[in-house]
C-alpha cells in the first residue's frame, strides 16, 4: 500500500471560478480544516469517489438520493442490525463529486459486544426473509401508489368556493408546501425501505464470495454470482413485456402497421382503426404500469427518463424483436439452458472442494446467498426505476409552478436547487402569492442558477481523483466490498489512472471482467438509449451504463463496454446470458472510445485495446 499515496482531502484545489460551490449542497458535505478534530478524522479516513453511482457531478437537487442512502445504509449498520465491525458510510463532496468512506468500529471490545446483538437481529431477518420481503413489496407498492396520488396543483387567483362551503380552513399555498414535503418524505421513506434488506443481503453474499475465493483463489467473481443469482428476475420483466408485445403483434398481424419508423402517436392512430390493432394497444397500455417505468439510465439522475416518458423508446426496441421474429429467429431467453448451466457449475465447484466440512460450509453459505439474492436483484426496479421515474415528474410539476411565478426560467432549472432551497423558495412563492406581492425568488434564483450552471460545467471538465485520504488495512463494510469493489487491484488501477494525462495517448483501458470471451469489432458509442437504433449488427456497444430498457441492443451487438458498473450490473448479467464478452466499470470508455474505432474487448481480463483509431 506504501506506494499508493493519495492526496489529503484538504489538498484538493477548488476549480478557479467555482469558489463558493459548497452552498449548492448540504453544508455538512464539505471537507473542512476549521476544527482540528474533524480535520484529523477526515485526513485519516479513506474517501473514494462514488463514480459507480455518480458518473457525473451532482446536481444540487439530485443529491437527495445521496442524503437518503447516507442515512439509510448507515442506520441499518450502526443502529438497527448492529453489524459488529462496521458503522455507516460517511459522505463528502469535492468539486461536485461525492466521496464516501466506510466507518469501522475500532474498539475490539465494542465489536465483541455487538456480535450477540447482530446475531439476534440479523438472525431474525434471515430466518423470516421471505415473509419480510413479501411485506416489503406491499410497503413499496403502497408508497408508490401514494406518490402517484400526490397532485401538485397551481395556485389559483381566487380559491374555489368549496374552500368556503366545506370549511376547509386551508389554502392552496399551504397544500403546495405540504405536498412538496410529502413528496420529499416519500422519497426518503422509499430509501429507508431500499436498505431494509440490502445490508444483510450483501453480507450474506460477501461471505459466500469470501469462502469461494478462499477455496478457489482463481474463481471468477461472475461464477460465484451465477451460483446464487436468480433467473426470473423482475429487472428482466420490462424487456419480457416487449417480447410479448412483439409476439402479439405478429400473432394479430399488426406488425405491418407498427412499421419501422412511425412514431408512437402515428402507430396508435393506425392501430385504433382495427379490432386487432385495438387489442394490441390494450396490451401495450397494460404493460405501461409498472413495466414501462423502467428507467433508461440508472434512475439516479433526473435526466434518466423512463420508457413512459418517451414511448418511442420501448416502441423502437420492440421493433427490433418484431424484426427478429419476422426473420424466424427466436427471441426467448434460453431459460432451461441457463438453469441447467447454473446447476452444473454449482455441482462441479462443490465437487472440487476437498473436505466434507467445506461442502457443509458451501451448502450453508450458498443457501443463504441464494435466499437473499432475489432481493438484491429486484429492489432496483421498485426504487430506482418505478418510484424514481414517477418522482422526477412530480418534481417537474413543482418546477412548473416555480416557472409560472418567475422563480426559474425553465422547468429543468429546478435541479440546480437543493431540496431545502426549493422548500425555502416555495415559502417565498406562497407567501407572496398569499400576500399579493412580488416574491424575492425571481430576483434571487435566476442569476444564482445561471452561476451554478457555469460551475456545473466546470465540474464536468474536471477529473476527480479516485480517492483521497489514508487507505485502511482492512475493510469490513459489506457494501464497500461488493458494490465499489475496493480491492488492492482496484486501488492500484486508480493509481495508474492518475498517471495518464492525455486521452489520445491511451491505447488500453481496463475495467471489471463482466462477462468472459474476447471480441474484436467496431465501437459504437451510445450515450443514451435513444442511440441504440444506430447500432449495426456486430458492433460493440460502448455506453455510460445500461439498464433493462437497453435490452434489445444486446440482440445486435457482439460485446459491450460500460463506464459504470460492477460484475453485478445489468450489462454484465445480460452479456453472460448471451455469452458475449463485457468489460464494465471502465470509468472512461465513453470519453476515450469513439464510434468507428476498432477495439478488442477481453471479457476474461477486463482489458480493452484500441486497435485502430478513426
Amino acid at each position, binding site marked *: 500500500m506504501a506506494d499508493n499515496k493519495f492526496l489529503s482531502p484538504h489538498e484538493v484545489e477548488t476549480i478557479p471560478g467555482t469558489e463558493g460551490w459548497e452552498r449548492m449542497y448540504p453544508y455538512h458535505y464539505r471537507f473542512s480544516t476549521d476544527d482540528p478534530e474533524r480535520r484529523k478524522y477526515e485526513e485519516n479516513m479513506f474517501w473514494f469517489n462514488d463514480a459507480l453511482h455518480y458518473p457525473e457531478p451532482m446536481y444540487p437537487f439530485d443529491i437527495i438520493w445521496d442524503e437518503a442512502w447516507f442515512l439509510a445504509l448507515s442506520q441499518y449498520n450502526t443502529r438497527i442490525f448492529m453489524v459488529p465491525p462496521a458503522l455507516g458510510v460517511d459522505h463528502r463532496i469535492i468539486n461536485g463529486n461525492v466521496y464516501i468512506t466506510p466507518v469501522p468500529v475500532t474498539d475490539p471490545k465494542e465489536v465483541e459486544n455487538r456480535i450477540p446483538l447482530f446475531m439476534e437481529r*440479523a438472525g431474525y431477518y434471515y430466518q423470516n426473509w421471505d415473509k419480510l420481503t413479501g411485506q416489503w413489496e406491499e410497503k413499496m407498492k403502497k408508497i408508490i401508489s401514494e406518490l402517484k396520488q400526490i397532485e401538485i396543483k397551481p395556485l389559483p387567483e381566487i380559491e374555489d368556493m368549496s374552500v368556503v362551503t366545506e370549511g376547509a380552513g386551508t389554502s392552496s399555498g399551504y397544500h403546495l408546501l405540504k405536498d412538496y414535503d410529502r413528496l420529499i418524505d416519500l422519497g426518503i421513506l422509499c430509501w429507508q425501505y431500499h436498505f431494509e434488506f440490502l445490508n444483510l443481503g450483501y453480507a450474506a453474499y460477501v461471505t459466500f464470495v469470501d469462502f469461494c475465493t478462499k477455496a*478457489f483463489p482463481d474463481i471468477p467473481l461472475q461464477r460465484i454470482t451465477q451460483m446464487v443469482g436468480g433467473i426470473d428476475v423482475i429487472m428482466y420483466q420490462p424487456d419480457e413485456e416487449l417480447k410479448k408485445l412483439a409476439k402479439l403483434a405478429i400473432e394479430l398481424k399488426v406488425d405491418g402497421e407498427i412499421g419501422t419508423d412511425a412514431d408512437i402517436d402515428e402507430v396508435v392512430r393506425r392501430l385504433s382503426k382495427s379490432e386487432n390493432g385495438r387489442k394490441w394497444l390494450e396490451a401495450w397500455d397494460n404493460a405501461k404500469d409498472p413495466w414501462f417505468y423502467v428507467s433508461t439510465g440508472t434512475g439516479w439522475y433526473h435526466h434518466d427518463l423512463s420508457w413512459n416518458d418517451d414511448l418511442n423508446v420501448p416502441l423502437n426496441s420492440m421493433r427490433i424483436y418484431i424484426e427478429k421474429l419476422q426473420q424466424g429467429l427466436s427471441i426467448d431467453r434460453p431459460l432451461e439452458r441457463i438453469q441447467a448451466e447454473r446447476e452444473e457449475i454449482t455441482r462441479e465447484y462443490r465437487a472440487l472442494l476437498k473436505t466434507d466440512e467445506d461442502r457443509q460450509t458451501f451448502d450453508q453459505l450458498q443457501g443463504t446467498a441464494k435466499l437473499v439474492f432475489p432481493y438484491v436483484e429486484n429492489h432496483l426496479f421498485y426504487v430506482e426505476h418505478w418510484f424514481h421515474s414517477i418522482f422526477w415528474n412530480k418534481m417537474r410539476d413543482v418546477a412548473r409552478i416555480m416557472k409560472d411565478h418567475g422563480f426559474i426560467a425553465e422547468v429543468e432549472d429546478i435541479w440546480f436547487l437543493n431540496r431545502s432551497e426549493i422548500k425555502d423558495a416555495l415559502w417565498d412563492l406562497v407567501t407572496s402569492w398569499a400576500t399579493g406581492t412580488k416574491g424575492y425568488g425571481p430576483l434571487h434564483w435566476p442569476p444564482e442558477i445561471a452561476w451554478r450552471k457555469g460551475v456545473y460545467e466546470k465540474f464536468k471538465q474536471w477529473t476527480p481523483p479516485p480517492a483521497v485520504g489514508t487507505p485502511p488495512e482492512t475493510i469490513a463494510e459489506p457494501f464497500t466490498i461488493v458494490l465499489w469493489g475496493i480491492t488492492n487491484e482496484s486501488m492500484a488501477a486508480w493509481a495508474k489512472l492518475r498517471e495518464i494525462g492525455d486521452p489520445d495517448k491511451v491505447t488500453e483501458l481496463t475495467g471489471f471482467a463482466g462477462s468472459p470471451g474476447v471480441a474484436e469489432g467496431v465501437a459504437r458509442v451510445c450515450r443514451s438509449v435513444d442511440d441504440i437504433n444506430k447500432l449495426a449488427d456486430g458492433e460493440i456497444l460502448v455506453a455510460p451504463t445500461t439498464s433493462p430498457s437497453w435490452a434489445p441492443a444486446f440482440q445486435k451487438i457482439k460485446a459491450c463496454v460500460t463506464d459504470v458498473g460492477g460484475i453485478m450490473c445489468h450489462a454484465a448479467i445480460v452479456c453472460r446470458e448471451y455469452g458475449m464478452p463485457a468489460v464494465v466499470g471502465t470509468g472512461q470508455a465513453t470519453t476515450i472510445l469513439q464510434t468507428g474505432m476498432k477495439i478488442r474487448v477481453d471479457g476474461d481480463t477486463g482489458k480493452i485495446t484500441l486497435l485502430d483509431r478513426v
Partner: protein
Amino acid sequence: MKDRKQYVRWFQECDLESIPLVGGKNASLGELLKAGIPVPPGFAVTTEAYQRFLDEGGIRQEIIRIAGTVRPDDTDTGEEASRRIRALIESTPVSLDIEDYIGEFYRRLSKRSRVPAVPAAVRSSATAEDLPGASFAGQQDTFLWIRGMDDILAHVRRCWSSLFTPRAMAYRAKMGFDHEKVAISVGIQKMVNSWTAGVMFTLNPSSGDTSTIVIDANWGFGESVVSGECTPDHFVVDKVTMEITKRTISAKECLYTVNPETHAVERHEIPEERRTNQCIIDDDVVALARIGKLIEKHYGKPMDIEWAIDKDLPAAGRVMILQSRPETVWSTKKVEPVCKPRKSALEHIVAGLVAGKKIT
C-alpha cells in the same frame, strides 16, 4: 491382413487386457485414447510378431543355447552372451509377412500424418511379467526421429534385442524367469512436429487451486518451457467453465526445433517482432484444458502434463499429450478445511464480517 491384429495394432486397439500382447506402454496409450485423451498416433508391434520373428528366423534355439552359457557369477559371460544374442536378433531378417504388416501400418501412419515416411519414435513396451524389470528392459530403448521402412524395421529389432541386455538377463536369472517365455512389444509412434508446446497443470501450482488449469506455452518443442530457459505464455483456465480467466503473453526469446536434415534438435532465437505474439490460439488453450480435465479424471488426481501442438496433423487433431505424471507439490500436502466449520451460515457471516477484508 486377416489376422493382422495378432501382429500389429493401432494404439486405439490396445488396452489393459491386451498387455500380454502389446506391453504396458502401448496398452496405456490405448487407454488414454479410450478416455478421449489424444496421444500422437501410432501402433504396436505385438509380442506375437516377436515370437513369429524368432520362429521364422530360426533363431529361437540358438538364443536359448547362448543364454544357457551365462554363468551367474561371471559378468563377462553375461556381457558376451548379450552381445551375441543381440547381434543375432539385429541381423536376422524379418519375414515378409511381418514386414508387410509393419510396413502397411507405417505407410498408413505416414498417410494419416500427412508426411511421407513420417519420422517416428520406436520404443519397446514390456509385458506384464517383465514389468518389474521395465526400467532396464526397454525404457532406454527409445529411438527418436526414425524414418523410412528400413530404419523402422532395424529399430524394431533393436527393441526386441533389448530383452537381452546383460542386466535384463541377469535379472531374469536371479528371479528364475525363463528366457524363452519373455517377449516384448514395440510401439511405433509419430514424432510430434511441434509448432507450440509446453506444460499443463490441472491445478494452479502457485496457489493449489483445484478449480484451475494452468498452461505454459512456447513455440517449438516443450524443452524451452520445461527447462525454464524462456518465459512462456501463461494461461489460467477455469476448470468448471473452461473460460480463460488469465492470459499473460510474454516476450519469448528462443525456441527448440528439429533440423529436418540431421534430425538434431536445434535452438533458435525468436525474431524480435514475433516474441510477444501469442503462441497458441485461444481455442487450442481451451481444447488443451478440456484434455487436462479428462486426464485428471482418468488418473483420479491432479496431474502435471507435457503437451504439444503438431504442425502436420489436421487442425481438429493437432493437440497432443506427450507425457503425464501426478502433481506432487500440492497433492501431498495435508488437506485442511478452507474454513472452520460452523453451526450456521449466520455464524460464518459474523466471522467473515469481523475478520474484514485485508487490503495490504
